[in-house]
């Protein structure tokens, strides 16, 4: 208290300190800030699932690929297109350092296992581009005859083919996708070229999200300034409010970068949170100052500043502390960026609190006592009949409030059962955006743009030469292929079946797993003799103890991946009977594990923050009932949040789950201000009804102003072109509205009930009040 008031008297010092810190942070951000968008950097690399996946990826050389689609209006089987395919295949590694020599697969390089007139050969479909009609027809026939290529690398209707390039996992997806799109464009006509694949989607996303935020965020701030000015009718307080939230954001990012910690994509939520929370501190301070002036217009600057500080230091400090600790609950997450997010959001909140407690008193010392403005919304409150009417309605209809709340909880609970967990990169794009359309196109024409690797491991050498094992693999591939989301599958059996077919003069009856281990071994030897032995290393290891089945999927949604994994796991007992363990690998799988980890962590920390908040409130008010009552609005807000997500089909993802911690951060502030104010009034001798009316007209107004300003600002995000940002906007509006509404309804009803039952005020005071009834009004 003394710290804040003495500091507030020295505006020059404040300015110097602020400017120094500000320049330090701006300098830190300008020189140290490093944005990390690569999902792999987020993952806890020591987690067993990731370690196993990484090991398998290394063993089988599983890499994310980009798909370059070459589409010809009629047929790709013409000299020009085939030549273009060959040239692009050769050119890609030269143009892109992310693509290594020999990592490009196309019709010009793919192994074709065939047999003509008793010859068995494995070689590319063409090395010299066919020119005559006969040659072109022969090429088309050989593609159609090879099920390893037809429908996978070349569309069934012959109008499109894929050039698949594996890219270096360390490469920067954002820059690669930009250059690739330009590159693809340069080869167009008469063919059309498309670029698809996970790195492209990831790259565009990493570019689009922050880009959209950069456009939307100034708009959010602008709207909030306008709203704050309209609500507060004070340039001074609007300015201080904006300084608080912007400084809080800078403080969080500044300390983060000065400590050399990179900025992660999830950190874009930090300013969102800090604005929503910081505005509340400003509004409550503003509110307290104006109330004080109304109650006693003859206060000196010093008296006003001191009395406002005295009244507000406890609630503001408590709200900041609970919010900060709520955020710090995120530090239990297994995911590093989320831990940092919790820590630095908490730091931002504390800095906002300090600023609010310094800047408002300082403004009184510096600019004098704010003048009353007749038109200001806040000044109306003396008579504020609406507010008082609200209090009466509330007091008279407590049962109705309870019934409606219970109904809301039930509806929210029902909706929450419909919430589905999903993390999909593609879902972040508009359905008619080029990237989404390309994805649909590629999924229609080919096996799929996403992939899942199933890894089978055994202890015994030669396991994957056993026909029974291979048959089990083939059964798994066949069974999973029946799922409409599974496009194509590829494994050792795919090779062996094609070889068995070819070695039996293309008799379809032999497109099966060879019947003996010897035949399998001999086919494999033959393949090594005539083909590229490295191709086999992608499906089986050297000792035949581990095998890799690749499933191409037509969706990158984690929900789809989860269902395919569940389907695959049904085969676990069959494989176990052969001494084989089943596991999964690939970037899609890791993203899936990661998103569930992230989500689990966020839900745990959300639960944890409820407990912490309840404990803190209990301690601060020295009353467990108050502690519990204070968490009621937050808990219901969370239920409604998940309920609405379930009802309007917003999937629960790491971003949307994080928003519910806003509900905690803000909801608890509302509760504390309300509880504090009510307690103060009661201690000053107000009756329950008087205290309720006064609290609603005083704190209630501040809560509503805060909610309107923040909701208005973030509602702007609902007009974003980027769907995830729209969801963030909508959910913040919803959470703010619910927090405010529930605090002003059900919490008041609960407080009144507890008070009536003498469970609200501390025992000592209750006794005091009993003896000394109805005196001492200030």
């Amino acid at each position, binding site marked *: 208290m003394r710290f804040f008031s003495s500091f507030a008297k020295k505006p020059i010092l404040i300015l110097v300190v602020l400017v120094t810190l500000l320049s330090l942070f701006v300098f830190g951000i300008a020189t140290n800030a490093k944005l990390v968008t690569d999902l792999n950097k987020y993952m806890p690399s020591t987690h067993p699932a990731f370690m196993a996946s990484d090991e398998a990826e290394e*063993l089988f050389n599983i890499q994310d690929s980009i798909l370059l689609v070459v589409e010809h209006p009629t047929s790709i089987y013409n000299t020009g297109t085939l030549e273009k395919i060959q040239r692009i295949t050769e050119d890609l590694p030269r143009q892109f350092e992310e693509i290594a020599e020999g990592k490009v697969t196309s019709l010009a390089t793919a192994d074709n296992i065939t*047999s003509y007139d*008793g*010859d*068995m*050969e494995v*070689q590319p479909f063409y090395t010299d581009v066919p020119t005559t009609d006969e040659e072109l027809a022969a090429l088309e026939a050989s593609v159609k005859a090879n099920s390893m290529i037809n429908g996978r690398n070349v569309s069934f209707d012959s109008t499109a083919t894929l050039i698949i390039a594996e890219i270096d996992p360390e490469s920067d997806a954002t820059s690669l996708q930009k250059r690739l799109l330009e590159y693809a464009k340069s080869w167009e006509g008469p063919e059309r070229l498309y670029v698809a694949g996970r790195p492209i989607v990831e790259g565009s996303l990493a570019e689009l999200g922050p880009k959209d935020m950069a456009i939307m965020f100034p708009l959010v701030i602008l709207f909030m300034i306008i709203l704050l000015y309209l609500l507060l009718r004070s340039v001074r307080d609007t300015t201080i409010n904006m300084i608080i939230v912007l400084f809080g954001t800078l403080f969080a990012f500044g300390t983060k970068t000065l400590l050399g910690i990179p900025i992660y994509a999830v950190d874009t939520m930090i300013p969102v949170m800090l604005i929503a929370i910081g505005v509340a501190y400003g509004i409550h301070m503003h509110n307290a100052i104006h109330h004080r002036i109304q109650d006693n217009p003859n206060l000196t600057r010093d008296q006003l500043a001191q009395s406002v500080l005295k009244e507000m230091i406890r609630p503001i400090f408590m709200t900041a502390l609970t919010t900060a600790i709520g955020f710090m609950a995120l530090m239990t997450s297994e995911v590093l960026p989320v831990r940092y997010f919790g820590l630095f959001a908490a730091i931002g909140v504390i800095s906002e609190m300090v600023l609010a407690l310094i800047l408002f008193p300082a403004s009184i010392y510096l600019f004098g006592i704010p003048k009353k403005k007749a038109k200001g919304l806040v000044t109306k409150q003396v008579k504020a009949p609406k507010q008082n009417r609200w209090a009466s309605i509330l007091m008279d209809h407590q049962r109705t409030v309870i019934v409606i709340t219970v109904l809301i909880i039930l509806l929210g609970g029902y909706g929450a059962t419909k919430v589905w967990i999903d993390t999909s990169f593609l879902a972040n794009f508009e359905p008619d955006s080029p990237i989404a359309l390309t994805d649909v196109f590629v999924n229609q024409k080919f096996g799929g743009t996403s992939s899942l690797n199933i890894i089978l491991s055994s202890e015994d050498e*030669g396991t994957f*030469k056993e026909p029974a094992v291979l048959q089990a693999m083939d059964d798994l591939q066949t069974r999973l292929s029946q799922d409409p989301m599974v496009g194509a599958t590829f494994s050792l059996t795919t090779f062996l079946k094609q070889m068995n077919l070819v*070695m039996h003069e293309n008799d379809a009856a032999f497109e099966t797993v*060879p019947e*003996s*281990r*010897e*035949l*399998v*071994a*001999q*086919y494999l*030897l*033959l393949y*090594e*003799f*005539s083909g*590229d*032995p*490295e191709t086999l*290393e992608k499906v089986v*290891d*050297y*000792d035949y103890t581990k095998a890799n089945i690749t499933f191409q999927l037509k969706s990158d949604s984690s929900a789809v991946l989860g269902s395919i994994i569940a389907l695959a796991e049904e085969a676990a007992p069959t494989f176990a009977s052969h001494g084989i363990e089943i596991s999964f690998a690939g970037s899609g799988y890791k993203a899936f594990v990661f998103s569930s980890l992230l989500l689990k962590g966020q839900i745990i920390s959300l639960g944890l923050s409820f407990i912490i908040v309840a404990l803190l409130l209990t301690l601060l008010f020295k009353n467990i009932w108050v502690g519990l009552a204070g968490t009621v609005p937050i808990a219901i807000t969370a239920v409604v949040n998940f309920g609405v997500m379930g009802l309007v089909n917003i999937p629960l993802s790491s971003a949307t789950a994080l928003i519910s911690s806003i509900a905690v951060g803000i909801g608890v502030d509302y509760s504390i201000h309300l509880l504090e104010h009510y307690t103060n009034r009661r201690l000053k001798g107000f009756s329950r009804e008087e205290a309720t009316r006064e609290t609603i007209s005083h704190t209630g107004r501040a809560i509503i102003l805060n909610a309107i300003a923040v909701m208005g600002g973030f509602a702007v995000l609902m007009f974003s072109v980027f769907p995830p940002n729209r969801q963030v906007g909508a959910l913040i509006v919803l959470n703010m509205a619910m927090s405010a509404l529930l605090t002003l309804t059900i919490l008041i009803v609960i407080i009144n009930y507890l008070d009536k039952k003498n469970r609200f005020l501390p025992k000592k005071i209750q006794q005091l009040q009993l003896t000394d009834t109805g005196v001492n009004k200030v």
Partner: protein
Amino acid sequence: MKNKHLKRMASIVAIALIALVSLSAALSGEEVMQEVYTRDSGNNMSANLVMTLTNSRGSTRERSIQQYRQNDSDGEKKIMFFLAPSDVKNTSFLSYSYADGRSDDQWIYLPALNRVKRVASDKKNDSFMGSDFTYDDMGTRHPSADTHKVIRTETIDGRKCLVVESIPKEAKPTYAKTLAWVVENEWIGLKKEFYLPNGKVGKKLEIDSYEKTDGVWVITDMTMSNVDKNSSTRIQMLDVTFNNDLKDSVFTERQMKIGPRI
């Protein structure tokens, strides 16, 4: 007596030849490689070949092969029978390469299928049996396919070697050049390095042992290391004999099915 005399005669001729060679200007690269190509390798050979393949992770696969080779003016015929591993036992491989430059003919017999199949392989730089050796490396590349230059001499194991740089004539070679260390007058290579277009060594051949059997130089232990892929293949030749009495019928589809009982 007669034998002694002959031996003496031979050594005199040899000394004279060496002197002549030394007196004459150093051999050109083309001449050296021609010598290597035409070095006596016996009319035929039989050997037991052990091939050990090691991949980049250090895992190994070992194959044991009984091999017969026959040379005549038309070209070379080779038949190989797999002895191990057991699941490929009796798989056999037959190849004809022609002196007139025609593509090789190759067949494989798979006992589990009881069928002989032709295997097409046009490319000389294809892997030899899935190893780090190519067909070219196994000694069928004709010297006229490259331009050669002796760039220096070096001593390996006390033997004077000519270091020959060979640059392929074809349009898009896998390796931009090779360096071969050829023992002067024996015309046997003791080392070879293959350079990628970027100037780095892509793979290298090292000879660990060689001997003269039945008057023919034979490399009995060699390892080709693919530096690029971090894999290697070691070939050991056991029980090598030359100039046996091998019938033409050994190099037939029928023999492929019968197996290595000759």
